[in-house]
């Protein structure tokens, strides 16, 4: 199985590489459109600031490539947010895969949300064998409101979508690679998806 992690120059993707290795697979980093298209699974990580990352994606044409991919694609954290219509962070246009707009938590709660929170109302094989209300590790200031494409929900200020799915596209707000053994199971489930 060929797993490609989209590499657009943001740091801190080593954790995902290591998590995939712990699951017994190898992943390669690439921003080459042909290599990404040929992969069995594509992971779209996200660390940093939305408008900066979007700019990087545009520079390498990945903004037009990603929405056309047919194999399972997994956006993590900012990766998931950028797969939405748009985000309030830096007023950034997203890839428009998930039909929802990402907005910021208010100052009624501490921002960023940092730490472990529960996921529930779990849907799809991404959560196969995962119990309701497991804790996942999250670090974020912006969120996707609950919507038709939500496959997991989390409560922080409001109940929001902590995972999304549309066709072959999956995204989680939480970091499965940093969420203990259950997080690793979710990452493993993604790698087992047929589509």
């Amino acid at each position, binding site marked *: 199985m060929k797993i490609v992690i989209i590499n657009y120059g943001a*740091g801190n993707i080593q954790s995902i590489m290591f998590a995939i290795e712990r699951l017994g697979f190898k992943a390669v980093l690439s921003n080459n459109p042909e290599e990404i298209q040929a992969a069995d699974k594509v992971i779209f990580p996200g660390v940093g600031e939305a408008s900066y990352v979007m700019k990087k994606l545009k520079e390498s044409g990945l903004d037009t490539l990603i929405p056309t991919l047919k194999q399972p694609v997994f956006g993590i954290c900012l990766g998931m947010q950028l797969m939405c219509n748009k985000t309030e962070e830096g007023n950034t246009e997203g890839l428009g895969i998930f039909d929802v707009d990402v907005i910021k938590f208010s*100052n009624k709660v501490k921002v*960023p949300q940092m730490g472990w929170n529960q996921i529930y109302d779990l849907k799809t094989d991404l959560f196969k064998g995962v119990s309701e209300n497991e804790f996942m590790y999250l670090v974020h200031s912006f969120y996707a409101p609950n919507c038709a494409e939500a496959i997991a929900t989390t409560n922080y200020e409001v109940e929001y979508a902590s995972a999304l799915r549309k066709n072959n596209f999956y995204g989680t707000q939480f970091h499965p690679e940093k969420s203990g053994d259950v997080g690793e199971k979710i990452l493993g489930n993604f790698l087992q998806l047929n589509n």
Partner: protein
Amino acid sequence: MNLCETTKKMLAKRIIPCLDIKNGRTVKGVNFVDLRDAGDPVELAEIYSAEGADELVFLDISATEERRKTLVNMVRSVAEKINIPFTVGGGISSVEDVEILLNNGADKVSINSSAVKNPQLINDLAQKFGSQCVVVAIDAKQIDGQWIVHLVGGKVPTELNLFDWAVEVAERGAGEILFTSMDNDGTKNGFANEALAKLSTLINIPIIASGGAGNIQHFVDSFKEGKADAALAASVFHFKEIEIKALKQELRNNYIEVRI
């Protein structure tokens, strides 16, 4: 009554063991009898992770020329093995220092003296890597009733007031504050809950309480009275005076949300 079912779903309070690292090895009386190698940070990290620690902090206190290379190797080994987040601190003073640690698998970095000497570093790190990975550590103690920020492990006083400095680092883009009360550190008499609670009224980013943990009730108090988002301790965990599993169960018994 099942507490699990009645607990409202919310962000959990975090328990964070802190490991001092010198030349890539853990130091300061770690007392795990079942360790094969008491100085191996990876093995300790795995044990704490299995016991339910929510995060780990590695504080590098080496002073050798090769310190950075050794630290990077340690970070890589830890990231290979453990699947919970960890922070690395100690002697970090530039964007380049941070980049190499993050690229090797650290989730967050903690800066202290370098932020006081060059506050712009906070802005630069937040802009380049995002606030989520920038922890600003503040050591402070009371002098004539004023909380004064100190450097070099509490030895050198600055002109800065704890609360003013905390507000400034939050405005500059820190994602989290690690506040150590030098008055409480090592006393085992509990955390500086009054100052912690005041910090929470002034800034809207998470606060990690540090310094003073001696028993389980101290952790309860840091969350209930100190309003802390996370509590950090070293020796009580290293010497097994407090076991993380028992600690978390007692927190839950006190209606404090924790990950169990």
